[in-house]
């Protein structure tokens, strides 16, 4: 039982003290048995406060510490480090959350908030009294990292990690690398195409001895934990031999009788069941689309590289950290949404493909295009739909596309139906350039966007334009381009396997945008690129390199200290009913014989401290450090008091 406890209550510069009477809280706890000192502080996390707490611990020989401040997700690590600096075992520190769950949640009820804060601090004191000192469990960390997704973010992270000496497994679900960027024929702010960028990155990882690339591969199971993840990778066959003959393969593609929509070209073209998306694609081998292949055997007749005997494989890998860079999906408009379904209404990604296919004349569906209407924020900033967020990249991408059409074709007229152009930062110059080229901007408010109608052979876009004092304006367009935003991957099964939580926008969520921007609540799993939220290429690269730095720092020492929060069996009362072993998701519990009695034993390095074994034990013989009956029930007792 702790008897010299230090209690520090943070004002958080008003965030707490504006709603919670901090003095009252301190007064309420200062005379509790075992409380040695109780102080309030403007910022408990400030360096001077940290130093004071650490000094108090060592000078006053405190044996327990409570800091009442913000959410433990923000500063639990800060104050457990302070405890250790003062010479106190960090498990004798208890964090009381009186900001997110008190002052902010009850800013409408100051008296209620203060009463709640008092209870919470008292409960923390009760808990710290029962706390015990624990030592971390040291484990070996695998110096290898799985990078999921071989888009530009994934490849860039893989390259960086490999250069830093890590063994990298780059796992791509598709049969080709490059992700969404390989679909781009021009990039804003660069003299290169998306395909060229992909090629450069591919060449770097391809030659790198530390990178192993798997295509057609998907993580289907994750076990273990930080430092030692055990992942199962399912590899689907390409049905093409390693010793492939290029000439023959081209022939094979030619003879394949199956034609399907080419989703690489956003369904504006067709492809065969044996295919590659473009000539210079990597790896430089076509693949056979198993879903659409009829096994007619035509390709086998002309090509010796075809091998239908290839089977799906399951690979087991052990990695120290996982970096997810699984990308995004372009928003798919709903039927009738801004005229979607009308023949000359296309999405921006489709339009970019069309531009790539038309050399000196812009032609779509056999008609030459002169008047183009761009409709912004399709699938973004939705008033009624789920996507409340801005997709960030699309204003600039659209303006850049528009500029390109002027450079490539003659007589193009562009009309931008927008809700306020967001060319942030240096991208502003692109907006300026488009304006200089004579592009016309028509703007509406969020709740009153442009409409698209089919009038005979014309497609008309109407808007109440706020730039001309709310005039009803309309444009007959040869082509309507829906500027579709980014969405989280529709098939995000990897996220489900890894258990990465999603944010309100359904993209994967970081722990804290500013403190820990590339880490997830799953220890050892980092995120990068557009799977975290809309980003342009440069922003994706920054996040990829940041995530690489973080994953590297997890495993680079080759060892890790794990939380010692694990279940413990009371050998005297255990009667081995086996229920705990059944409940354990990690197979950490087994039966042993001790003193002629069957009892449960817990493997320390396997137990993850989930506590699933606790409630199933018939004899209540399992306790978990930090969550023992004593600790939890002492808190319940205090919280229940009136």
């Amino acid at each position, binding site marked *: 039982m702790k008897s010299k406890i230090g209690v520090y209550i943070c004002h958080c510069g008003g965030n707490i003290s504006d709603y919670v009477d901090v003095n009252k809280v301190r007064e309420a706890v200062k005379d509790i048995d075992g409380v040695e000192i109780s102080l309030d502080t403007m910022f408990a996390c400030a360096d001077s406060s940290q130093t004071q707490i650490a000094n108090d611990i060592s000078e006053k020989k405190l044996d327990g510490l409570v800091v009442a401040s913000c959410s433990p997700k923000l500063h639990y690590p800060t104050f457990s480090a302070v405890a250790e600096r003062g010479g106190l075992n960090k498990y004798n520190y208890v964090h009381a959350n009186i900001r997110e769950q008190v002052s902010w949640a009850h800013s409408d009820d100051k008296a209620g908030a203060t009463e709640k804060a008092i209870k919470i601090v008292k409960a923390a004191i009760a808990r710290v009294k029962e706390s015990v000192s624990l030592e971390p469990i040291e484990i070996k960390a695998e110096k290898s990292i799985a990078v999921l997704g071989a888009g530009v973010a994934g490849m860039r992270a893989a390259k960086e990690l490999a250069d830093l000496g890590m063994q990298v497994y780059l796992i791509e679900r598709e049969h080709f690398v490059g992700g969404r960027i390989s679909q781009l024929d021009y990039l804003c702010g660069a003299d290169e195409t998306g395909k060229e960028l992909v090629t450069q990155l591919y060449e770097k990882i391809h030659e790198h001895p530390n990178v192993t690339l798997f295509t057609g591969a998907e993580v289907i199971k994750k076990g273990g934990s930080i430092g030692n993840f055990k992942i199962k990778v399912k590899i689907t066959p390409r049905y093409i031999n390693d010793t492939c003959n290029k000439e023959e393969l081209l022939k094979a593609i030619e003879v394949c009788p199956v034609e399907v929509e080419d989703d690489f070209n956003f369904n504006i073209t067709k492809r065969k069941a044996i295919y590659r998306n473009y000539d210079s694609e990597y790896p430089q081998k076509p693949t056979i689309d198993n879903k659409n292949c009829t096994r007619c055997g035509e390709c086998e007749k002309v090509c010796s590289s075809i091998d239908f005997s290839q089977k799906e494989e399951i690979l087991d890998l052990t990695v120290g950290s996982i970096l997810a860079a699984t990308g995004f999906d372009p928003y798919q408009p709903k039927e009738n949404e801004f005229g979607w379904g009308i023949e000359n209404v296309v999405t921006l990604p489709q339009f970019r493909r069309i531009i790539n296919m038309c050399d000196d004349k812009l032609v779509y569906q056999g008609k030459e295009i002169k008047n183009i209407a761009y409709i912004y924020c399709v699938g973004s900033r939705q008033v009624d739909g789920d996507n409340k967020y801005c997709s960030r990249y699309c204003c600039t991408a659209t303006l850049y596309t528009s500029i390109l059409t002027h450079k490539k074709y003659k007589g193009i007229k562009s009309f931008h139906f927008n809700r306020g152009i967001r060319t942030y930062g240096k991208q502003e110059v692109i907006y300026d350039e488009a304006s200089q080229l004579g592009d016309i901007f028509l703007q509406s408010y969020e709740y009153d966007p442009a409409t698209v109608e089919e009038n005979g052979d014309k497609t008309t876009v109407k808007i109440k334009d706020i730039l001309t004092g709310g005039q009803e304006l309309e444009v007959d367009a040869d082509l309507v381009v829906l500027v579709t935003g980014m969405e989280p991957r529709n098939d995000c099964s990897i996220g489900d396997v890894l258990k990465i939580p999603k944010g309100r926008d359904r993209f994967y969520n970081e722990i804290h945008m500013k403190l820990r921007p590339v880490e997830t609540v799953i220890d050892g799993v980092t995120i990068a690129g557009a799977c975290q939220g809309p980003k342009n290429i440069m922003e994706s690269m920054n996040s990829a390199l940041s995530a690489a730095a973080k994953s590297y720092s997890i495993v680079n020492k080759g060892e890790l200290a794990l939380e010692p929060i694990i279940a413990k069996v009371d050998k005297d009362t255990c009667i081995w009913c086996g229920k705990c072993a059944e409940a354990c998701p990690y197979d950490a519990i087994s039966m042993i014989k001790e003193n002629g009695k069957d009892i449960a034993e817990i493997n320390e390095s396997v137990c993850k401290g*989930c506590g699933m074994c606790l409630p199933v034990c018939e004899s209540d013989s399992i306790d978990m450090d930090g969550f023992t009956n004593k600790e939890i029930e002492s808190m319940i007792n205090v919280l229940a008091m009136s």
Partner: protein
Amino acid sequence: MSTTGKELPKILVFSTEKISDPAIDMAGLLKLHYPPRVYTIPIPCSSAVKPRWILKAFEQGFDGVFIAADGTDCPYGESCTEKTGEIIRRTQEMLKEKGIEPAKLRMAAICSVCSEAFVKHMKTFTEYLVKQKTT
């Protein structure tokens, strides 16, 4: 609700460190208010709540207990929903034996961004418990 703060029922919430507790934090961040006599004890996983803790809470004077479960988001295993459900079922049996209304123990899956859902649960649960108290 016409009841004043003092008479409001007390609810103990078992939240989970990685999933539901962040949602409860976010409710605060978004200033979504709920009755202040809701107290949380974060634990690693909702399948770790011992029935004796719940019984203890009622014994000590809590009017309701709410398990903010991980549901399918549980980072520890797929069986979590089932397991937490089983704990609730068993504990409700025990409550019945003790003459405590089993509906005073509730559970719902609260994902890491289910702040609004949490607040709604707290409001309706409080209303329910107020009714129980007065009738």
